[in-house]
């Protein structure tokens, strides 16, 4: 217990919404001013707690989208129609409102600039959020780690951070690949279809580079990508996974 006592207690704190950004019709980024925030590592998450007037409380975990070096705290939230917390965060919360949160939480699915690369980031839908924190930190920190982001979306209209990702792709050492699973629009320059081992064989770093892979998304995608990378010879211990499913609520 001595060890536990040395760890900082994660207290609830109030942050203020300073900006709300529509990423897609279902996804919003919430920019927070959090005076008591102690900083985080790229890839970590926070717990958010909502309290109703009758005292009812609900809490959920959300990945942090901003980089540690961004000096602001940004959450990106997808509305789950049968959820209780995400519809409030996406549709109701507005600048000037306050939000109760605590964190950072996690630490395995996390990347620091001195960890280096090469890095493979594979995301499905809103599973891109913690990967975006890593990508932003890679760029903000001036790290030279080579990074490839492979992102899977249903349609081109579902792409989160589309404009910023275009800018990121122009940075030396950064490659961005999108794949669409339910649409094949005219003039589309990316890939089509679900991520499978064949696509990973094209996009992933060769196993002998001993690169680090971060995979986040729905269970089906995470299982397929992790198994695909293992099948290509990647060490299981070099593949970090996180699930983003409807139960995020």
């Amino acid at each position, binding site marked *: *217990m001595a*060890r*536990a006592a040395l*760890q*900082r*207690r*994660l207290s609830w704190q*109030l942050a203020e919404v300073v900006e709300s950004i529509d990423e897609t019709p279902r996804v919003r980024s919430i920019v927070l001013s959090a005076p008591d925030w102690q900083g985080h590592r790229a890839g970590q998450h926070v*717990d958010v*707690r*909502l*309290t*109703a*007037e*009758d*005292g*009812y*409380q*609900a*809490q*959920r*975990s959300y990945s942090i989208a901003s980089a540690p070096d961004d000096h602001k705290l940004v959450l990106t939230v997808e509305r789950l129609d049968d*959820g*209780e917390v995400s*519809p*409030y965060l996406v549709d*109701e919360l507005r600048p000037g*409102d*306050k*939000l*109760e949160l605590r964190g950072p*939480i*996690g*630490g*395995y*699915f996390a990347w620091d600039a001195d960890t280096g690369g090469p890095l493979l980031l594979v995301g499905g839908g809103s599973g891109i959020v913690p990967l975006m924190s890593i990508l932003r930190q890679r760029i903000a920190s001036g790290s030279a780690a080579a990074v490839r982001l492979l992102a899977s979306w249903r349609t081109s209209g579902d792409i989160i951070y589309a404009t910023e990702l275009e800018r990121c792709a122009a940075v030396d050492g950064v490659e961005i690949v999108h794949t669409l699973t339910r649409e094949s629009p005219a003039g589309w320059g990316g890939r089509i279809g679900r991520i499978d081992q064949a696509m990973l064989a094209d996009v992933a770093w060769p196993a002998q580079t001993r690169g680090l892979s971060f995979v986040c998304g729905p*269970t089906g995608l*995470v*299982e397929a990508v*992790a*198994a695909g*990378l*293992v099948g290509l010879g990647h060490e*299981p*211990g070099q*593949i*970090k*996974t*996180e*699930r983003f*499913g*409807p*139960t995020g*609520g």
Partner: protein
Amino acid sequence: MAFISRGFKRRTSEPGQEGRVPPGQHLTADFPVLSAGPTPHRQLADWSLSIRGEIDDPLDWTWDEFQALPRERITKDIHCVTTWSKLDTEWEGVSVDTLLDGVETTAEFVVAYCDGGYTTNLPLADVTGGKAWIAFGYGGEPLAPEHGGPARLLVPHLYFWKSAKWVRGLRLLQEDEPGFWEGYGYHNYGDPWLEQRYSGD
């Protein structure tokens, strides 16, 4: 609680479940999968279960030997630290009491160890006395690999990260030793009714 979230209202009602859902949890009908790395796919011929550590004669079971042990059907509510709870989950497994039957040990703690390298620590008293099982069946089917198959620890009275997937053994220890998530700031014990999610809770 002084702070009210403007415009937030309870959206779901869970009638009749009062007393079964711990604070800060909500019910889910599906069975979410959370793991830190790739799902191991262990062949049963290569599988064994072991008891090591503070024990005079270490114990080992092959899959067939393990399957020949007395089995129990278990129906329990489970609670994940990520705030979902699932009621009346149906398992089949071997009680840890059965594995430790006749074992003399001075240990007060155990660390469960697993394929893939995952570990989690518990007081010995929390895996004995009918409180924990090595589960190999779920919902009448063999336990699926993504849910920890061929076998996982089942300790339903603690947050579900303590119910280690792909378990391969228990190490009996005199001193407590933090496991994988416990080393990343998650609570050392993890009682959902006390909301022991993170260190210091």
